[in-house]
């Protein structure tokens, strides 16, 4: 099958590239083996973000808070403040390193252990903001607790999304003059409506703070972007893996996938957006770090002892490993650029965050859709 562009990886970078290109009339296929880092997202984007992302996502129904060219701060589940650029609408952003509230209610569904309420309360009291932690229960959550694997963010969202009035009622009862309510991200799995409805129904600001994965807003955004891509005519090969390829005379000739076996896929241009170690875009042995699909040149510290820092809280050097590219984001193989291949997202060497993933993605989109 032939496309104008084949994208390997259906995470933030791959989906954004696909959606943007497809809307410009460039036919794309995205090959995506399993779900991606969005499913573990905090709901906010760190790092410098390109402006184009805001209107593109808005067309797909994804509202982003914040200003792509200016820093904002969000309250993290560990109670600290983090500098970010953009966030899903669930997350409240502040113009400075301080939460805007005079009194806070932290409300957690009873029995939900993936939300570190004590850390958040601690962080707020360090900012001098009084707060109380309360749990609320609804009859529907009782049945959920019978199954241990269900008292997780997504299981709760599936129950609460259709009972926003009941949730609002329960929170109302706990309110005692607080002007900010902090809740875990367990609302709005298939649409942002429940998040909006809850904000409308409660007479205080609500901020939804990240909890242990999976990320409910991350899954929602992934589904919204995928849907918009497919409705724009894009082809999404869900659960398939690019297995092998051929590069000759500095160009990629085709891609072979696990599911399509002998049926090869060809394109004018290819985009590698296969993520970092977590998504298997990069792999390692005891001796080396490598890019498994194309065998591209990878940048990482030569000595294995330099891969790690002994301080577990310090940035780990191996995390910055990634493919080497030229200025146009063509990856290098054996020191020479592959001319019809681009790389974007956290497969690239350097710092990994959503801002960097999006910036590199839009750079590639502009090159391809000249």
């Amino acid at each position: 099958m032939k496309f104008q562009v084949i994208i390997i990886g259906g995470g933030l970078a791959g989906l954004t590239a696909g959606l943007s290109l497809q809307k410009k009339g460039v036919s794309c296929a995205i090959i995506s083996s399993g779900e991606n880092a969005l499913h573990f997202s905090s709901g906010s984007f760190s790092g410098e973000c390109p402006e184009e992302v805001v209107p593109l996502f808005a067309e797909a129904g994804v509202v982003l808070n914040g200003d792509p060219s200016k820093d904002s701060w969000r309250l993290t589940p560990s109670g600290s403040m983090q500098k970010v650029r953009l966030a899903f609408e669930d997350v409240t952003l502040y113009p400075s390193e301080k939460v805007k509230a005079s009194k806070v209610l932290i409300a957690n569904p009873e029995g939900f252990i993936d939300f570190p309420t004590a850390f958040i309360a601690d962080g707020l009291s360090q900012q001098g903001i009084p707060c109380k932690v309360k749990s609320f229960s609804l009859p529907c959550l009782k049945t959920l607790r019978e199954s241990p694997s269900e008292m997780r963010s997504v299981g709760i969202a599936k129950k609460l999304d259709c009972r926003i009035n009941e949730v609002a009622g329960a929170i109302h009862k706990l309110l005692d003059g607080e002007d900010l309510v902090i809740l875990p991200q367990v609302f709005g799995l298939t649409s942002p409506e429940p998040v909006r409805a809850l904000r409308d129904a409660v007479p205080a600001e609500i901020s939804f703070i990240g909890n242990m994965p999976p990320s409910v807003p991350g899954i929602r955004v992934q589904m919204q972007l995928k849907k918009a891509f497919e409705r724009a005519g894009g082809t999404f090969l869900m659960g398939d893996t690019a297995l092998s390829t051929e590069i000759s005379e500095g160009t990629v000739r085709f891609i072979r996938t696990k599911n399509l076996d002998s049926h090869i896929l060809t394109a004018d241009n290819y985009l590698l957006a296969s993520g970092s170690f977590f998504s298997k875009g990069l792999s390692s042995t005891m001796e080396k770090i490598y890019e498994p699909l194309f065998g591209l040149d990878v940048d990482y510290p030569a000595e294995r002892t330099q891969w790690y820092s002994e301080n577990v809280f310090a940035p780990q050097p191996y995390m910055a490993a990634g493919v080497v590219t030229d200025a146009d984001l063509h990856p290098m193989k054996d020191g020479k650029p592959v001319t019809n291949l681009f790389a974007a997202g956290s497969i690239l060497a350097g710092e990994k965050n959503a801002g960097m993933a999006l910036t590199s993605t839009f750079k590639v989109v502009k090159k391809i859709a000249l």
Partner: protein
Amino acid sequence: MTLQEMTGSAHNFEECMKCTVCTAYCPVVPVNPRYPGPKQAGPDGERLRLKDPEFFDEALKYCLNCKRCEVVCPSGVNVADIIQEARIRYSKSKPKLRDRILASTDFMGTMVRPFAPVVNGVLSLGITKSVMDGVLAVDKHRTFPKYSFEGFESWFKHNAEASQKQYKEKVAYFHGCYVNYNFPQLGKDFVKVMNAMGIGVELLDKEKCCGVAMISNGMSEAARKNALSNSASISKVAASGMRILATSSTCTFTMRDEYPELLKVDNSAWRNSLLLATRFIYEAVSSGRKKLVFRDSYKARIAYHTPCHLEKLGWGIFSTGLIKMIPGVELIPLDSNCCGIAGTYGFKKENYEASQAIGKALFDDIASAGADFVACDCETCKWQIEMSTGNKVLHPITVLAEALDLDLTAEANK
């Protein structure tokens, strides 16, 4: 051997990083609190079962074997295979009479078809439905697929077989129980389209039910017998270089992937010769080897539903690719959702409500698509969607048969 190879495990279960993404996408979890979900039933439970089979939980029977957990798992764990294999290995419960009846699609078909008009009448009577509901626990809301008076095999022998000799190029057709007993028209459409492309159709010497319903009803021994028999018939044809085509995505998936993974029947000699008909046609046309000529007057707005097993197979693009070739068609891809029937699952009284609740997202999506009809490669999805939404469901091959100018296509492929 590398370190990674040495630490490999059956169905990759050691790769699980406990992220619960599989549980987030499992269609059964939100509707059935008794089902522990794929993470718990699969890799987590496997660890315990390896210690002591007593840890096997009969609630694993609620798994639809839809494979959605595998499609989304970021670590490549074959979650559903772990669950199904555990059922085969450890389950002590014997299938009920009702389950055996529902699973024995070809036995049932052979028995009742000669009395088709009577049986259809009886099956659709309120009183029969109530009795089935009470005695057999087959839900009374279900409309049984109609049995057809003349089966496809018999129609083929009397009306088509002789004329197939004129074609040099040939394919073998695995029609499946549904085409044979319930809906021969799809088989007839297939023969029509193939012949127009200048290709003759043969049947296998002996075709048995692929066994999918037996696997899900705890009858793996019987399923394995069928698998061995089909494997022998298919090997023979494949050895002669011929392709074997099927119109059912579930039969195709079962024979390609469940035979080796679950039933331990080696199909390496013919696995790549067995294709879904839409893939075969798409490849023949896109390579320029064959031509399709469509009628100018054909116009339709079609919503396409990818069945779970086709999603897992990853071949939905061939069906949508073919439909997109028709000039007068507007194609709306429906979101990836399970319809809830999962073969015989939804027919069981205890599953009826869960089945409809699972399908709701798909039904809503269909309602908002505003299409003339739904296209889909799976027969059981067809029953479920037609019963639950009132929308007509056509197989992509039937869509082709209706959209093609058969004479001009035959001319172009001379």
